[in-house]
């Protein structure tokens, strides 16, 4: 059995100025082919104007088991949200 092509993660930026977004993955022998294949697979209906490809084994990710401690700081700081503060109606839009 021959060697399997490496796995690439595909990111596409749409037409409306938003950031590149992960859309899926595919196998390709190199980056150039990964981009070509991504064009064929993930932009068949005008989904994007820019493609990034990253070999999957180059991605480092946070661990799901750390979910609690990792995100706790943001949960306990509700004053980071504008709705925390009451502004009187007379003040107008803020």
């Amino acid at each position, binding site marked *: *059995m*021959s*060697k*399997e*092509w490496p*796995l690439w993660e595909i990111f596409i930026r749409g037409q409306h100025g938003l950031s590149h977004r992960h859309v*899926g*993955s*595919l*196998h390709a*022998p*190199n980056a150039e*082919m990964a981009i070509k294949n991504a064009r*064929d*697979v993930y932009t*068949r*209906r005008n989904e994007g104007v820019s493609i990034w490809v990253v070999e999957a084994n180059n991605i480092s*990710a946070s*661990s*799901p088991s750390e979910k609690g401690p990792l995100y706790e700081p943001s949960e306990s700081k509700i004053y980071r949200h504008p709705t925390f503060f009451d502004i009187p109606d007379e003040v107008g839009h803020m």
Partner: protein
Amino acid sequence: MYAQMIKSEASTEDPKQLKEFQAKIDDNIKVEPRDWMPEGYRKTLIRQIGQHAHSEIVGQLPEGNWITRAPTLERKMILLAKVQDEAGHGLYLYAAAETLGVSRDDLTEQLLSGKMKYSSIFNYPTLNWADIGAVGWLVDGAAIMNQVPLQRTSYGPYSRAMIRICKEESFHQRQGYDIMMKMAQGTETQKKMAQDALNRLWYPSLMMFGPSDAESVHSTQNMAWKIKMNTNDELRQKFVDQTVPQAQYLGLTIPDENLTWNEEKGGYDYSDPDWSEFFDVLKGNGPCNVDRLEARNKAWDDGAWVRDGLMAHAEKKRAAKTAAE
């Protein structure tokens, strides 16, 4: 369906952990690749998503059969785009299965050796152009019935693949119905071809949903895990109710003498397909089982030098780049 008769694997893990896992699913929290999951859930999903992916790929064959013989250049381009979509759908699903720890080549090997199945429907031939219309209308229609609810499935990568597939799939059914409309409104001969295609593909389409599984333990487990969203009978009923008026519009007759509207249940009563034929096709005795597997094996073997050549070239380039640094 594209995945038929999926047996669920038993789970042997710690009951407390299993209970927490079930609670998460009941709360509609998606399970992601690196989250803990019972082995049974993982194995059942690999089987289901893998079979679904294989169906997309093998499903290219009956339609690809007519690309070179499409009646107009426009029809040819449309069919080409549809068959290309199916390749994409196979890819999204294989990628989802791979997140569960199985390799792409492993899945391919299991398809080619006949160890893993694909949907029974693709073992029927497409004899003439009207069949291409009927396949889009009925087969893709039946697939959509199953895939729309699966967008809410519990496994994140599977759900995301389904969302993408559903966005693209309604073009497939509409192009099929468009062909049927042209044929049904055409000459007497064309109308006969359309009726003949419906006659041959109606029961195989009903079989796609699989036999009644209301009492099945596998179905119960898979529904609790939310990797199956409805029973086979529910989906089949929905399909019949949706398709009958579409056939009436075309002026075609559903080949079922027992088809009657049942006011009480708010749906049609219809005849079951011949389930012995279904099991026979699953066993490998359908009209095209041998052809389909031969074609897939040939494509895989004939493409080996391309895969190896591109890989060797990429490795050479990589080595040269490392040496230069």
